[in-house]
């Protein structure tokens, strides 16, 4: 117990920022999806860390993290399916090219 909570939080914040940067800067849709995954996992780290340091008697943090995994897996499945569908019709996975709804 000599590692303080703040370290985990800093790690999670860094990971979140990296994920956010990836989402905002990459043009490839798959890379954006990867960034989203990083952000979700940063949140998971936070959840587990808070659980372990603040209220280990309850299982809420762990359960929440597991639900996030499940949702993330489902989201990736849907996201990849969409990207493949777009790729088939437009021969591209670049987000900028997917501008069907633009004015």
């Amino acid at each position, binding site marked *: 117990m000599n590692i303080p909570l703040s370290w985990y939080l800093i790690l999670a914040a860094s990971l979140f920022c990296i994920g*956010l940067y990836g*989402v*905002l800067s990459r043009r490839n849709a798959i890379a*954006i999806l990867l960034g989203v995954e990083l952000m979700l996992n940063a949140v998971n780290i936070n959840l587990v860390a808070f659980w372990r340091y603040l209220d280990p008697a309850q299982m809420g943090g762990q359960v929440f993290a597991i639900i996030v995994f499940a949702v993330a897996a489902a989201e990736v499945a849907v996201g990849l399916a969409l990207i493949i569908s777009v790729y088939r019709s437009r021969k591209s996975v670049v987000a*900028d090219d997917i501008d069907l709804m633009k004015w």
Partner: protein
Amino acid sequence: MIWLLPLPPLLAFFLIVLVTNKKKALSHTLGVGAAALSWLGSMIVFVRALGVEHFGEHAFESVVDWLPTGETALQIGVRIDPLGAAVLFFVAWTILMIFLYSVGYQNFGQPAGDHDVKGLPPHGATVTDNMGKKHTVMSIEPMYSRFFAFLGLFACGMYTLVVSNNLLTLFVGWEIMGLCSYLLIGFWYGKKSARDAAVKAFMTTRIGDVFMLLGIAFLYSATGSLSFEVIFAEGTLHALATTPAFFGFSAAGFIGLLIFIGVVGKSAQWPLHVWLPDAMEGPTPVSAMIHAATMVSAGVYAVLRMFPLITADFSGHGLTMTMSIIAFIGSFTAIFAATIAVAQNDIKRVLAYSTVSQLGFMIAALGIGAYVAAAFHLITHAFFKALLFLGSGSVIHGMEHGALHTGEHVDPQDLFNMGGLRKKMPVTFWTFLIGGLALSGFPVLTAGFWSKDEILADAFGHGHWVVFITLAVAAFLTAFYTMRQITLAFFGEPRTRAAAHAQETPWTMTLPLVVLATFAIGYGWTGIPEHFPILGGLIPNWFHEFVGGTLAVHPEVLEFSIWPLLASIGVALGGLSFGWLAYRKVRTPRQDRLQIPVLKNKWYFDEAYDFLFVRPAAWIAEQFSYLFMDRTIIDGILHGIARGALFLGGVFRNYIDKPVINEFFGDGTGNLVKRAGAGLRKIQVGRLQYYMLASLIVLVAFAVLYYLLLA
């Protein structure tokens, strides 16, 4: 029962107008059927009335509240007393007969005309017979159904008037008849003369009606009721007779005078007589029904009704002012119209002036207080004058037939185009002769003798010498022009080819003639004075007993005197024989010595009225009402207002609407939104990352703000 009497003709009117307009046979069936229903009802009422002892005191009456006026209600109702029953009798008979007659007169069953148009009399149709020869025959009236509809409405008005127990519904019926008179005089509205005559009749009678309405209003304000029973109660009459009104009249006398002016208009008395002769422009059944038998009689009927009021301050010696006026107008009209009738050549116009003259007899009789005599003459006159008019219609019809047959264009109404018709139209001749003799007062046999004699006897018996002599001279003239008419039309040789080819009319026309001729003789026997030599007392003087019972004070039976009897026999026979002698040999109007301009032109009354009233009215209408009032003042004000409004509108538009509303609110808002949209559009780049970046920035900004403000 009595309530229902006016209804069938009214229903027939609406049904014909709304439903059966196109079907001519159905329309006249409805019209005649309705008249027959009302006739049947009237006969039942009449017979029941005969069975009641002292019917005058036990009249049939039924009343309902109609208009609530404050505390009390204005009541209307029906009442049949002896006078009402007697009038109902002749009204029902003449109306039914005239309805039937109209079927033939308007040429039912004849083909539609070649060139007939609505609003003009039928001109005849060409038919081809079995031999392939073309004939011109009479054609059916194009507006046949409309005619029966109007007759129905008229009959409704007349029945309403007769059964009314109050002045209000009496006046309603009075005005309905006035309207129908207008509509029917102008029935052939394509003719200018018919249009003018209709307007003239309407306007002239309207003058009288306004005074009558004033009288009714005065009466209502004085007594608070218009019901005959209330007005003629002894106390009310006494109060009215002792209340002074204007110009030395008592209230009763003044109201009586006002109502009498209405009668002057309706019954075509001098000086409002001018409309009746012109009203002959209408179809002949109309002349017979409205302008001889019923509507003009309604005027006399109204005076008969008002008799207790008019004579309320009459003591029996010396006529009151109102009665003197009535007697003067009546006798003056009687002689004045008779002089005109002498010089008229149109068969219907002679009868029209004769009607005016005979109505004058009745009015004069009422003026001298001869109530029963006036009522008697009213009824006998209705019968024989309707008969004469229908007879003249039959003559005209026969002449038209002759004119169409020979292709000769002659006026079928001009007496000098006729002649020798007695052989061509025997039924018409005999009935016309009976009617003419009744009108002349041919002794003993005819109804006209008994009634006219009674008026003369009354005038003689009460010492009204002026009235007596005037009426006797008028009676002489009556007999004279009647014989002139009969001689010219029926005797001698035909003056035109049309007259030579005249033909007897169909049964629908001759049957009414025969029925009315029966009454023109027979009805007189109901009123033979008791003290008459030989005949008196053989048949009781039913009429005097019955109708006299209407009044509270039963009029006494006049003492018999031989002089008025001799006078009336003398003038009748003298006039008849003089007329026969004078016109036996006359062939053309030139040989007629009585065609003097002053009589021919009706004493220039039309011209005088035209000069005195019509032209000034037209001048005032043109110069004052139209040019000054209308164009200058009213239009000026209107134009001023319009200009003001226009100016105000300009101000609003230029200084408020355009700058403020349009540019600031309307266009300003629109432009603002447009510009904002154009600006905001730029951030909608369509790249997801930008949106997320934007939300990130906003999130961070809010977080910082939150932190700074709250922590």
